[in-house]
C-alpha cells in the first residue's frame, strides 16, 4: 500500500462558459480519516473531484495530491484510486475490465483477483457488465479504485444504488481503509447516507464552500433542545406540562415540547404518568445540513479548521 497523502484544494475554480460551476474552493483532506464531500445535486462535487484527477481542467486554482497534480504522479493509480461513475463497456466482463485497467496502469495481474475478492465481486467476475445491477457496478468501480492498492481513495457517490447490506458493508470497509492510514474522500448528496461513516465533512452548494470541519463540530452547532414524548395517559401529561408552563403540541409522533427530555421525564414522574416514548427532537443534523446548503449567509465558520 502506498501511504496516505494530503489532498489540497487551493482556490479551485471552474467556469463552463458563463456558468461558475465551482468558485474558489479552499480545503484540505487528511489521511487516516474518512471525509464526506457533501452538497446537493449540481453543487459542483463531481466537477471538483474531476479537477483533482485531471479529467477537467481548472479555470484557476490547483488541486494536488501530496503536493503534486494528478498527471504528474509517477504511477497515478498506485497513489490515487478513483471511482467516478461506475461506467464500463457492457460487453466486457468485470474481470476483463479490471485486467485492461491494470495493464494500462502497469499493475500486476494478481491484483485483479485480489480486488475482486476484496469487494465480493469474485462470483460475478466473468459475467458481462451489461447484466450487472447498479450495486454490482458500484462494487466493480470500487474494485477498480483499489487495483493499485492506493493510499488515496476518491469515490463519487459510492453508496448510490447499494442495497442495505451493501451500504453496511461499504461503511465499515471505508472506515477500515482510513484506519490503515489512507485518505478517503467520499461524495454524497445525502448527509444521512454517510453520517455513520465520515469523520470530517466538507459541504459545498452552488459551487461554493459552506462548511469544513469535523462531523462532531457540525453536530455541535445543531439546536436540539426539545422533546417528543408519548404516554397512554396523554391528558394527564399534557395537564402536568402545561401546569409547569410549557406549550404542548400534539403531532403524529407524539407530544412535542420545547423542553429537554430530562425535564420532561421529571415532570412525568412527579405527575405519576408512565411514558411510552421519550426522545430529543429539534433541528437534527440533516436539518443543519439542509440549512447550510440552502442559506448562503450561513457558512458555519465555527467548525472551520484549516
Amino acid at each position, binding site marked *: 500500500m502506498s501511504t496516505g497523502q494530503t489532498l489540497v484544494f487551493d482556490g479551485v475554480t471552474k467556469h463552463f462558459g458563463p456558468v461558475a460551476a465551482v468558485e474558489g474552493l479552499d480545503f484540505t483532506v487528511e489521511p487516516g480519516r474518512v471525509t464526506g464531500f457533501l452538497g446537493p445535486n449540481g453543487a459542483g462535487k463531481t466537477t471538483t473531484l474531476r479537477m483533482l484527477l485531471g479529467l477537467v481542467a481548472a479555470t484557476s486554482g490547483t488541486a494536488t495530491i501530496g503536493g503534486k497534480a494528478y498527471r504528474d*504522479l509517477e504511477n497515478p493509480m498506485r497513489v490515487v484510486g478513483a471511482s467516478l461513475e461506475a*461506467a464500463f463497456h457492457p460487453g466486457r*466482463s468485470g474481470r476483463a*475490465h479490471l485486467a485492461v485497467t491494470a495493464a*494500462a496502469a*502497469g499493475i500486476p495481474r494478481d491484483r485483479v483477483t485480489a480486488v475482486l475478492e476484496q469487494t465480493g465481486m469474485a462470483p460475478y467476475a466473468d459475467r458481462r457488465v451489461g447484466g450487472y445491477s447498479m450495486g454490482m457496478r458500484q462494487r466493480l468501480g470500487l474494485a477498480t479504485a483499489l487495483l493499485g492498492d492506493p493510499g488515496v481513495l476518491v469515490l463519487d457517490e459510492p453508496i448510490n444504488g447499494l442495497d442495505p447490506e451493501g451500504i453496511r458493508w461499504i461503511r465499515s470497509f471505508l472506515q477500515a481503509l482510513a484506519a490503515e492510514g489512507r485518505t478517503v474522500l467520499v461524495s454524497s448528496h445525502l448527509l444521512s447516507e454517510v453520517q455513520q461513516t465520515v469523520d470530517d465533512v466538507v459541504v459545498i452548494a452552488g459551487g461554493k464552500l459552506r462548511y469544513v470541519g469535523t462531523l462532531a463540530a457540525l453536530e455541535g452547532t445543531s439546536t436540539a433542545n426539545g422533546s417528543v414524548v408519548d404516554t397512554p395517559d396523554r391528558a394527564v401529561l399534557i395537564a402536568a406540562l402545561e401546569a409547569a408552563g410549557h406549550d404542548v403540541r400534539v403531532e403524529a409522533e407524539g407530544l412535542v415540547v420545547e423542553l429537554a427530555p430530562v425535564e420532561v421525564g421529571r415532570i412525568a414522574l412527579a405527575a405519576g404518568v408512565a411514558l411510552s416514548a421519550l426522545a430529543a427532537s429539534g433541528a437534527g443534523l440533516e436539518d443543519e445540513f439542509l440549512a447550510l446548503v440552502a442559506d448562503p449567509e450561513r457558512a458555519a465558520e465555527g467548525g472551520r479548521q484549516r
Partner: protein
Amino acid sequence: MTLLRAVSAEFLKILTTRLWWVLALILFGYVGFSAAAIAFFLSITPEQPGMVIPDDFLAPLVYSMATATGYVFPIIFGAMSITSEVRHRTIGTVFLATPTRSVVLAAKAVAGLVLGAVYGVVGLAASVGLGAPVLAATGQETLLADGDTWLMLGRIVLAMALWGLVGVALGVLIPSQIGSIVTIIAFTQFVEPILRTAAAFADWLGEVAKFLPGSAGDALVGASFFSVFAGTSGGVAPLEWWQGGLVLAGYAVLLGAIGAATTWRRDVT
C-alpha cells in the same frame, strides 16, 4: 514504457469484446461474396467494345475486392476504438490509468494499424480464397505464381492498415459514435463515389479527385474495381502506389492532429 502499457491495454480491450471478430466475419462474407461474384461474371461475360479487360487484369481486380469493398471495415473499427469509449463513458478511467492523453491516442493508432492489417489478411483470405478457385474453374489466370501479384497483396494489407489509422483519426475528430459512423458511410458510399464519377468528365476535376482518400487507397493497391469502371480514367494518371500511401497516411495525420488539438483535450465531464 507507458506507451507499451497503453498499447497492451488497447489490445486487451479489443480481445475482450466481440466487435473485432464480428466485423471480421462480416468483412469475410462481404468481400468473399463480391470477389467470387466478380470473378464469375467477368469470366463468362464476352468482351464488349469500350470495356476491355486484359487477361492479366482480372485476377488483381478480383483480389483487390479486399480493399475495394472491405476498406470501410478498418475505418469503422478504428473510429469505434475511440467513439465507444466516449459512448460508454469509459474514457475517464482510461485517462486515470494513462493521464498523458497523447500516449492513449498513440496506443490507439498502433492498435488501429495492426487491426487494419489483420482485416487486410482476412479480406485477402476471402478475395483470394474464394476468388481464385472461381477464376481457376472458369479457365482464367489466377496469377498466384506471379511475384507482382504477391506484391499487390502486400500493398492491400498496408492499405487496410492505413485505413485503420484513418479510422482512429476520424474517431478522435468526431467522438460521437453515430456522427462518426454516419460520416464514414456517407463519405465512402456517396460523396466520394459521386466525386470520382464526376471526375471522369473533366480533367481538372480528375486532378483533384485523385487525391481523395479512396483514390489514394486505390492508387496504393494499384488495381480496383472502381478505377477500372469509373475512376480516374479521364486522361488523368493516378498517383504512384507510394504516393497513394503517403496521401492516405497524410489524411490520418491531418484529421488526427485536428482531433488531438480539439476534442481530445476537452474536459471529461
